[in-house]
């Protein structure tokens, strides 16, 4: 086990705080990307609060590990993590989508410290991550580039172009995590547009593939450590997750890909996490 029971408990609590922030950012009566944000909360918690080498006081530190959300619509989780790490004041989290805010509907690097690139038009983030990994090789730096993809997103052809770049250039400093939450905006992946099988495809494209429970802090942390040991190949961690994980009334439901919580639902969700944020 690469992390102590104590650390696991701490990271689980952080993940709940992130979910709290997501629910509060979206608010009641307004649409927001609840589903895909909550499904990656545990992964984001482990990356920012355990695994990644980064410095909130120096967001442009050249040796930092980098995290790109190729599925940029799940930015709420990243916003919450960046705020809680200290990249910007937590009070900014109340300004989501307001005119002039740093919390855009999709992440913008020139507006928010800690955002590495503009993503949200799906399919582009993995290529940007490849470029950063290539630069790391060229500059003989030892940083790792992490990139989170959606299982709906990987229908974009550019993802597979990028997968070939990563394998061809042996980008072992690149770790992708597939948020396999099974649901895209209009319904279950298997019914709408099935991108399976995942592990086999990435293996065939030259990646080292690991498969985990994407809500197990221990498995996430272990897989990220294992990824460090892989040489000469990029690593894909297929993370089995649940859409809207942690918010029972929304779990697994396509309506909450970009859904609206009623006042009552919002209050229910807030109550779920409020003790973690005392």
């Amino acid at each position, binding site marked *: 086990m690469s992390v102590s029971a104590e650390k696991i408990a701490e990271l689980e609590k952080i993940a709940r705080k992130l979910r709290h922030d997501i629910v509060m950012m979206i608010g009641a009566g307004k649409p927001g990307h609840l589903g895909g944000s909550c499904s990656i909360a545990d992964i984001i918690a482990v990356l920012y609060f355990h695994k990644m080498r980064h410095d909130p006081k120096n967001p442009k530190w050249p040796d930092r590990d980098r995290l790109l959300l190729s599925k940029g619509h799940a930015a709420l989780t990243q916003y919450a993590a960046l705020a809680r790490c200290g990249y910007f004041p937590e009070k900014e989290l109340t300004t989501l989508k307001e005119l002039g805010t740093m919390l855009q509907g999709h992440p913008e690097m020139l507006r928010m410290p800690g955002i590495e690139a503009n993503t949200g038009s799906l399919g*582009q983030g993995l290529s940007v991550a490849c*470029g950063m990994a290539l630069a790391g090789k060229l500059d003989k730096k030892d940083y790792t580039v992490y990139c989170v993809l959606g299982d709906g997103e990987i229908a974009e052809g550019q993802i597979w172009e990028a997968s070939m770049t990563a394998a061809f250039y042996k980008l072992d400093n690149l770790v992708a995590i597939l948020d396999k939450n099974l649901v895209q905006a209009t319904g279950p992946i298997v019914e709408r547009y099935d991108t399976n099988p995942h592990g086999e495809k990435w293996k065939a494209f030259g990646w080292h593939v690991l498969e985990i429970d994407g809500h197990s802090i221990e498995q996430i942390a272990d897989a990220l450590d294992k990824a460090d040991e892989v040489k000469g190949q990029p690593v894909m961690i297929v993370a089995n997750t649940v859409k809207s994980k942690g918010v029972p009334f929304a779990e697994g439901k396509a309506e909450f890909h970009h859904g609206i919580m009623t006042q009552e639902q919002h209050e229910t969700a807030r109550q779920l996490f409020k003790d973690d944020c005392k």
Partner: protein
Amino acid sequence: MNMQNCRVVYGETLVELGRENERIVALDADLSKSTMTRLFEQQFPERYFEMGIGEQNMVSTAVGLALCGKIAFVNSFAVFAVGRPYDQIRVSVCIGKVNVKIIGSSCGISDFGDGATHQGIEDIAIMRAIPNMTVLSPVDGIETRKMVRVAVEHEGPVYIRIPRNEVPDVSGENQQFIIGKPSVIRQGSDVTVFAHGYMVYKALKAADTLQEQGISLRVVNVSTLKPLDEQAIKELAGDVKAVVTVEEHTIIGGLASAVAYVMRGRAIPMEAVAIQDCFGQSALSYEELLEHYGLTDTAIVKAVKKVLA
């Protein structure tokens, strides 16, 4: 007249710059023998990235390199360099003002043999429409060399279209290239012709013909299509009887559109020589194709007479 091939000049200049600046990297999508980035690859194999036949991934990968401090040159034919990765240029490159240079080679109808699929006649319109993009079109080899150098010094997205064939030198070695500044290649007093690329040479030929007929043309090289120096355009069009624009590009969204917008509200007659709203096709020579689409000195003479009539 000295002839130079702009893509060869581009390839050589990139090598020169690569020698001076280790941050420069080049990416190509299996067209390096045409775009001439193979010269860069031969000199700096570790800083050249073959991206396979995949332009979208190439552009976004260049963004990643640029965000780690590299000055990334993305290369393909103009039609593929802006058409296939339009959204990647828009989102990955331009919203964040990332330091990526897009090189659109074999621009216009200069790839005469390959037909409509390979002839980039709407690249300037597409690139002009994206905020934060600088759009350049060199008039000759001399300007190409200066332009590529300036693109490296300029922090942020730049698009440069590069013609495929040899073109005559018409600009002066001593003339400085500054982004945004149009340059007067020939003084004249009756009509101002705004042109870019190889069409400047055609305008100069038209000016010779018209001079014999007592009509004086001012020929202006508008090698920066965006940002367009509106004040300079107004001044250069302010003391003549009429304005003609000439471009190897569709009439929609290029120089004709840009100049017409600048001259809005002014009672000055205008004519445009451009590819009408249609695709190109194959031909056995570049000049034959230019003639077919009305991009000749004769067509410019006609347009001048029409606008003065």
